[in-house]
């Protein structure tokens, strides 16, 4: 089957600390460039990585204070897809209970936040979230 073998994988473990999502975007950029992804797509990947990281930073309450990322180049002979995993060992949440935000409602709401997952889904080709008592794993991918 096309696009399913892992051709190359980079792992990154970040501490939960201010601006550390920038380190994640740089790793993503390197791996994406190494598979010749277009600059515009790389930029979209970067934004999705930022959102997934700040979610883990802000919401996970992971006891180890870490966020684990992998950047996998998937393909057959040629690189086809960049698959990024962002994992924390925190409290987890129920993704089905997250309300889809709309600006109309947010304009009257006290809480303007709640856009991260929607942005990730809008910018990446495929997104799956597994979450439970042992933490949260966001797997997101984008074809080159």
């Amino acid at each position, binding site marked *: 089957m096309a696009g399913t073998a892992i051709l190359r994988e980079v792992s990154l473990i970040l501490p939960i600390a201010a601006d550390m999502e920038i380190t994640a975007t740089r790793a993503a950029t390197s791996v994406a460039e190494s598979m010749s992804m277009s600059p515009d797509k790389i930029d*979209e990947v970067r934004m999705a990585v930022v959102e997934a990281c*700040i979610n883990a930073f802000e919401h996970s309450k992971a006891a180890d204070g870490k966020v684990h990322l992998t950047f996998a180049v998937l393909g057959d002979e040629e690189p086809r897809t960049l698959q990024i995993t962002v994992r924390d060992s925190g409290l987890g949440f129920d993704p089905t209970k997250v309300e889809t935000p709309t600006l109309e409602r947010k304009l009257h709401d006290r809480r303007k936040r709640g856009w991260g997952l929607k*942005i990730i889904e809008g910018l990446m080709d495929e997104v799956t979230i597994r979450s439970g008592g042992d933490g949260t794993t966001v797997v997101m991918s984008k074809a080159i």
Partner: protein
Amino acid sequence: MTESLHLNVDRRGELVVLYTEGYINNQGGEKIARQAYELIDQGHKTILLNLAGTKIVNSIGISILIEIIEKMIEIEGKLAFCSLTPTIEKTFHIMGLTQYAGIYPDEPTAVQALGT
């Protein structure tokens, strides 16, 4: 630190252009909001955010911009944006922000459209 946001203010009568430089995250968004509220208090009702110097934003930062939009609707003012990276523009579309704030490719186009 990586990139703390710089803000330049250009008052042009009713219109004010804010030039951002750097990351619009929590602190960056707050900085813009503080400046915007100050300008609104001074009677300015049209603010154009020129994002040419911003290559990265996050949803926390954008949420703070939504507060400014809400305020503008209240006072019948306008918040507009120009010179966005394609990704930031796409993100604004994903969020539906384009319905409540003008998005322009560059500053001259924005200034003309805002007609101030």
